[in-house]
């Protein structure tokens, strides 16, 4: 069910990016898509009642010196969080560039409406 909602969020972002006429709204649509994917990545690593995947002395069984089975069964997957951090930084960079291009375009054309920004044809 959360996955379906996440996919719905992705589709809302895609719809917004494709249908909207305002440049800033298109940018917002793309960002909503990015956040939907980030949310999806985070949910991949989710585990209800999970523990932080950090091994300290308490996680070893005193008798055998092995990592405790309880820790293995409850620790969450740390990789998606690293991926999401990277993806957020990248999307921040692309957001900054997109908004700056929007502002420069507004200075030239005096509008954000893409139906009026049409010098390129063919």
């Amino acid at each position, binding site marked *: 069910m959360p996955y379906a909602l996440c996919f719905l969020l*992705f589709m809302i972002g*895609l719809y917004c*990016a494709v249908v909207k006429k305002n*440049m800033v709204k*298109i*940018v917002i649509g*793309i960002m909503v*898509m*990015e956040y939907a*994917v980030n949310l*999806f*990545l985070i949910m*991949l690593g989710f585990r209800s009642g999970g523990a932080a995947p950090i091994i300290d002395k308490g996680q070893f069984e005193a008798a055998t010196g092995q990592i405790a089975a309880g820790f293995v069964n409850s620790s969450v997957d740390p*990789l*998606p969080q690293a*991926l999401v951090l*990277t*993806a957020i930084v*990248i999307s921040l*960079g*692309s957001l900054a*560039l*997109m908004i700056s*291009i*929007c502002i*420069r*375009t507004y200075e*030239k*054309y005096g509008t954000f409406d893409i139906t009026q*920004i*049409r*010098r*390129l044809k*063919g």
Partner: protein
Amino acid sequence: MSIPLPVFIAIPLVTAFVLPVFGKKGKDAATVLANVATISLLVLAVASIGKSAVYEIGKWSIPLGIDLVLDGLSSLMLLAISVVSAAAMLFSARYMEQYTAKAKYLSLFLLMVAGMNGVALSGDIFNLFVFLEIASLASYALVGFGCEHEELEASFKYMVLGSIGSVFILFAVALVYGNTGALNMAYVSEAIQSSGLNAGLAFALALFVVGFGLKAALVPFHAWLPDAHPSAPAPISAMLSGILIKTLGIYALARMVFNVFGVSVSIGWLLVVLGLLSMVAGAFLAIGQWDFKRLLAYSSISQIGYVVLGIGLGATLIARGTNLAWASLAILGGLFHLLNHAVYKSLLFLTSGSVQMSTGTRQLKQMGGLAEKLPVTRTTCTVASASIVGIPPFSGFWSKLILVWAAVQAQLYWVAAIIVFVSLCTLIMYLKVQRYVFLGELPENLQQIKENRGSMLVAMVFLACLCALMGLLLVPGLKENILDPAVQALTTGVKYSDAVIGMR
């Protein structure tokens, strides 16, 4: 001697961050430094031919860490990237004098090269996404570099479609990780072989095709290319059309389809159909254009179609398992055409930049009779046109011949017929270029123009020589070293994983 793989990414990346320090006063020093970087990359790429290696970043062993993989296909891409970027950088040394902020331009240029080298070398799908975004972001900024009306509009259009493509790719990466629990290509491939293609992975493959298709501007996804490529400064158009769409689109797609997911008849046919659509639609749209660079941009869509057709034909034949020799032939045609197109299309864009710098216009109807005024530009443009049309001694002829031959061997006669037909359309569009730019009457206002000198000519002559000589790559001795390993990298398919895991 083994080559440390990270230098391919480190050299352009470090230079890119050093260059803005020079600012306006040290413009010449910055230009020299940037040229040194691209030429040293060219030397390294030539030295890497025929080698294969796996490098684990930070000594983290795979699948825990990230690895860089050099195989035949990667070294072919590295070679193409470094040839085009060295020529375009040499050309920009003089051409970019008309813009302000040259150091920033050079810095973005090298960032794009770093991203593309990273895509070609990466052996990890998330890392591939990161490098792809580095290259894409640099290219969005470079398309809008002039900051005029058209450039900003084209840049925004390119950026929106490019970002949607990137999000699709990231979503597919997430789906692959969720279904296989691995991000390393070799391990993902192993997991897919053992578990089969379930619904989630099939959806991921579809997303990859759409995402990389958007980056490669295959026909249903091509809307941004004819705006973005002409709006960029000429050396950047050469980089975008010559190599960016191939590395980010074709190379990454081929790597996913052949080496990670494994080929099937349906995906092969999908690529064949996309290729044919791009070829025909691109050629028809190009003939009607009156803007020099826009015509070249549409022609790029058409030529990209040839590459995808060759690769798709190969995938279909491998999946059918009928005859591997014909599959290798089709893939050889596609990859050889990729290399050829990188050289002659970047040369054509450089000549268009030279014409634009001399005449101040891109409209074919406002030109004419430039053959006397711009002799070198005219000669190099004719060589490139002959090559793209496919006139025998030049490179384009050989790759198209191989593609036609492979289609006939596969008993797809109608595909062979379409390849020949699109070649005729290509002939028409380049005759149009020759007729309106270089022949005919010289307009009054262009009587005073002069040929551009210096590094621009060196870059154009260098690429023209390559165009004339690249047919030699099919000679035994060179073929075994450059093209065959690249073809093998694709035909071995999912056995790629064994090779990578075995090499470390």
